[in-house]
């Protein structure tokens, strides 16, 4: 039976001001299958909803169309009303005659005609909507956190402390991320390592956290509540249980390579511990640099000196499969590539550094034991130029976005420099100072007022070396004067970029990326920690440039979102999924190829839908040459009727 009711909302004068709502209701009453049609001043109000419920009951309606505002606003309201009156939620459709009609048109007769067509089209759709119930799936109550920086650590701890098992996967040999490289943190000047290491230890000791360092996620399949992940555990060739951290091995290792932790300011051996506080506290034999490990004939020196026999050349990469219900991606950032900053002599002149290198110079445990010394000649620089927006806010040449934290860390750098080198002079080139945040503005003021850092508004036009100095040419746009500084050191406030490999990771996880390569959140305002794939959440700088408190807050937010899933026995999934008409399917597999969620597969020569994986996007529908696959409640038949209605009359 097809008995449709149509309810046209005035929305005060929001709709009725431009659309003749009475006429729309009258026109729709003529439509075959429409057995009830009325208008009301505010459909979403209690009396309005009562009106709908009453009509459904009295006229035995089996479907309704509410012509009102955008479905994003009141679809749920009216579907609930329909439900209360005894019809399935999916038997209610919204005709958007406000945002898409009354608010954008002035000509009343034409707007009325358009509203009528929109409503007609909704009637055609709803007539063929099936009554559907949400799909229910059980939940694997464990989580995966990818990335062992501060965000990943925080998320893992929050989840573990909520009672859920967590697998924390980190690509490098130790957790800690970039935060462990930092000296002090703004605006409080807390020692970064001092506040982070207790958390790292907590992770390593937590009974609910399974820490997998030197590991990478290879493959993710499944869906919210039921992901299957394959994790590649790379061999470290060192058994942490046996390693006593005696450090004898590094002494004999003949291979020296740049030390990543110090951003190349120092070197390390092929067998190494990234930094003294590393978690897990163990050595790693880096097989990319150990020349012989690939042929399994290492020089053997490290093994020879290792008393506890912790070194095992026979370790092999291992793929570990885990099942989890939710995933938090906290893959962090890298600094904008040095190669792109040739204009500032970065990479060419040893005394042009990036922010992280400068952090290492500032760090008490850094290569200079906290002394500010030029890499080129180990002299104390007396004039240091800091250049903000290096690689950011420059859509023509570099990144268009504001990297957000650079103003603050530059202020910190300049201040700390002054604390170390009292007779030195720090200059900061800036475009604007962006210091929104608790205590941030005060911090910048302090840098200027107490520490006498000179802020120059303007861009640096040229940097070149001359007689052992780095000459910086720039323009102070406030005074209009050209500026030339013979600096001893230049520090670039490099933009934050998504970490290397984020793109590949996004593909594996089926996450979307924004135009800058950061992982895209589901909604910029309302769903900032959710990814586009349900059950996967974003934390930290993987999503956008952010500072430590923001990263921590988002990590906790993501953990809370994951808990929402993990705390449930079963999950519900929208039932508007694809369905195959077996008789028509020839098993060509084109739909399988286009499905973004691997929800389709071929079985016995026919396409098969995994309803839980299907998000109902309908790309399969448009691909199928035989119209053999359709998304429930937006079938091609429905669209065909909607097209007819849009063009009729």
């Amino acid at each position: 039976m097809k008995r449709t009711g149509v309810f046209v909302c005035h929305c005060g004068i929001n709709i009725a001001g431009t659309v003749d709502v009475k006429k729309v209701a009258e026109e729709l009453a003529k439509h075959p299958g429409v057995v009830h049609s009325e208008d009301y001043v505010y459909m979403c109000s209690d009396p309005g909803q009562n009106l709908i419920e009453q009509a459904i009951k009295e006229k035995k309606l089996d479907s309704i169309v509410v012509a009102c505002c955008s479905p994003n606003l009141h679809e749920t309201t009216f579907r609930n009303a329909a439900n209360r009156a005894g019809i399935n939620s999916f038997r209610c459709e919204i005709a958007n005659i406000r945002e898409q009609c009354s608010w954008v048109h002035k000509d009343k007769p034409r707007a009325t005609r358009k509203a009528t067509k929109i409503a007609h089209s909704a009637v055609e759709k709803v007539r063929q909507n099936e009554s559907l119930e949400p799909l229910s799936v059980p939940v694997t109550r464990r989580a995966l956190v990818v990335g062992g920086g501060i965000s990943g650590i925080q998320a893992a701890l929050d989840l573990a402390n909520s009672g859920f098992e967590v697998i924390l996967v980190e690509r490098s040999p130790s957790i800690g991320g970039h935060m462990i490289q930092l000296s002090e943190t703004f605006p409080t000047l807390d020692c970064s390592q001092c506040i982070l290491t207790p958390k790292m230890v907590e992770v390593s000791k937590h009974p609910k956290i399974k820490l997998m360092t030197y590991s990478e996620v290879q493959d993710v399949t499944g869906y919210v509540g039921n992901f299957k992940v394959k994790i590649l555990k790379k061999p470290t060739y060192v058994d942490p249980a046996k390693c006593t951290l005696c450090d004898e091995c590094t002494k004999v290792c003949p291979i020296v390579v740049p030390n990543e932790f110090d951003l190349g300011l120092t070197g390390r051996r092929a067998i190494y511990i990234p930094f003294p506080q590393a978690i897990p506290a163990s050595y790693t034999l880096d097989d990319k640099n150990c020349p012989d490990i690939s042929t399994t004939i290492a020089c053997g020196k490290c093994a020879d000196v290792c008393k506890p026999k912790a070194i095992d050349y026979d370790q092999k990469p291992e793929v570990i499969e885990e099942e989890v219900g939710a995933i938090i991606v906290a893959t962090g950032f890298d600094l904008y590539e040095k190669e792109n900053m040739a204009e500032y002599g970065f990479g060419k002149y040893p005394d042009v550094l990036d922010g992280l290198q400068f952090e290492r110079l500032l760090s008490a445990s850094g290569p200079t034991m906290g002394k500010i010394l030029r890499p080129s000649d180990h002299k104390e620089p007396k004039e240091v130029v800091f250049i903000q927006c290096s690689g950011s806010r420059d859509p023509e040449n570099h990144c268009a976005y504001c990297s957000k934290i650079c103003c603050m860390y530059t202020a910190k750098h300049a201040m700390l420099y002054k604390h170390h080198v009292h007779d030195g002079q720090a200059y900061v080139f800036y475009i604007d100072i962006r210091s929104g945040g608790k205590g941030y503005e005060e911090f910048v003021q302090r840098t200027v007022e107490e520490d006498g850092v000179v802020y120059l508004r303007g861009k640096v036009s040229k940097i070149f070396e001359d007689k052992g100095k780095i000459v910086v040419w720039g323009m102070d746009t406030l005074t209009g004067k050209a500026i030339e500084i013979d600096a001893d050191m230049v520090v670039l406030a490099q933009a934050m970029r998504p970490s290397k490999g984020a793109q590949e990771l996004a593909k594996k996880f089926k996450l979307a990326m924004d135009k800058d390569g950061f992982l895209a959140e589901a909604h910029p305002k309302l769903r900032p920690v959710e990814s586009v794939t349900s059950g996967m959440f974003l934390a930290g700088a993987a999503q956008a440039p952010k500072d430590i408190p923001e990263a921590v807050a988002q990590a906790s937010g993501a953990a809370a979102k994951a808990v929402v899933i993990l705390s449930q026995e079963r999950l519900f999934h929208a039932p508007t999924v694809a369905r195959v008409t077996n008789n028509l399917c020839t098993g060509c597999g084109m739909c399988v190829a286009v499905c973004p969620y691997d929800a389709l597969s071929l079985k016995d020569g026919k396409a098969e839908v995994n309803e839980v994986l299907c998000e109902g996007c309908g790309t399969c529908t448009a691909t199928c040459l035989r119209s053999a696959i359709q998304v429930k409640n937006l079938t091609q038949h429905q669209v065909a009727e909607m097209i007819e209605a849009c063009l009729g009359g």
Partner: protein
Amino acid sequence: MAKIDTLKEEARKLLQDGKVKYIIGYGAGSNGWPAAPLFIKQPEDVDKLIWDPTCIHNLVRFLVDEKRRKGKEKPPDKRPVGIFVKGCDSRAIVVLLQEKFIERGDVYILGISCEKAGVVDDAKLAKKLAGKKVITIEVDDENRFVLTTAGGKIEVPVEELLAERCLECRANFPVIYDVLSGEKTKRAVDKPFGSVEKIESLPVEERWAFWKEQIDKCIRCYACRSACPMCYCDECVVDSIQLAVSADTTADEKAGRIKWIQRSAAPSENMIYHLVRAIHLGGRCIDCGECERVCPLDIPLRLLNKKLEKEAKELFDYEVGFDPDLPALISSFRDDDPQDFIR
């Protein structure tokens, strides 16, 4: 011109050994056209096989029938079917493999290279013969068709009689086969899309006038899709018919068949039919030209399909029917696909 003696012997052996279910090849026609499809089950019938430039039919179409037949056999005879293919026809097999319609083991491919020639166009041939009846057609060493008629021999350079599609052919020898007869001579085609470009160069209204005149003729006998090896759907989307109805088809499914076009052979409906067919052949048509050949009203349907072949090549660097492992044109994309047409 390739000789098929070796293929005949191969065919005979296959049948004698029971290695194939039957063989689809070319035999003598009877309705005024020298060649016609021939189905051979007995080894002794192998001598009925012929090969000449009138072997124009794309026999791959019959694999569609075979699949239906096999679906009804209990138990199915899973032996392969032997099939004679030209270069273009072999590409149809590649697409069928790509779309998993058949498996490689379903066919035993007897390939024939067209070498420097190809097949003849019926209209051009009729014009050349001017009422005379042709007895045999061969290709001589100088790449001329030699037409033997009761009144003597006529020699014509191949280009004058070749089917249009052969003049634009980019695969004049089979790309997939089990045995091959003839040389793999690559023929230089300087304008693979010349015919399409000619239409493209017309102003929009003239293009429309051209196509309107052609499509208006359509009587919707559906010979084009019936002859097409790619049109293997049980039910065509533009039909409101219920071909794919089976006992388990629900009433809703039947009622939900979409009438994309009306049954009336009106110009608009004909045009939509041909557009749908063309777009569904995008990245699938291998330009065997059968649709155009079989059309009783001589609608140049090849030009529609060829257009999308051209776009697939030029926009997406996609070539149809060479690689069975390639994803379909429309089920793949590249990050840098052109989008200058999008606002």
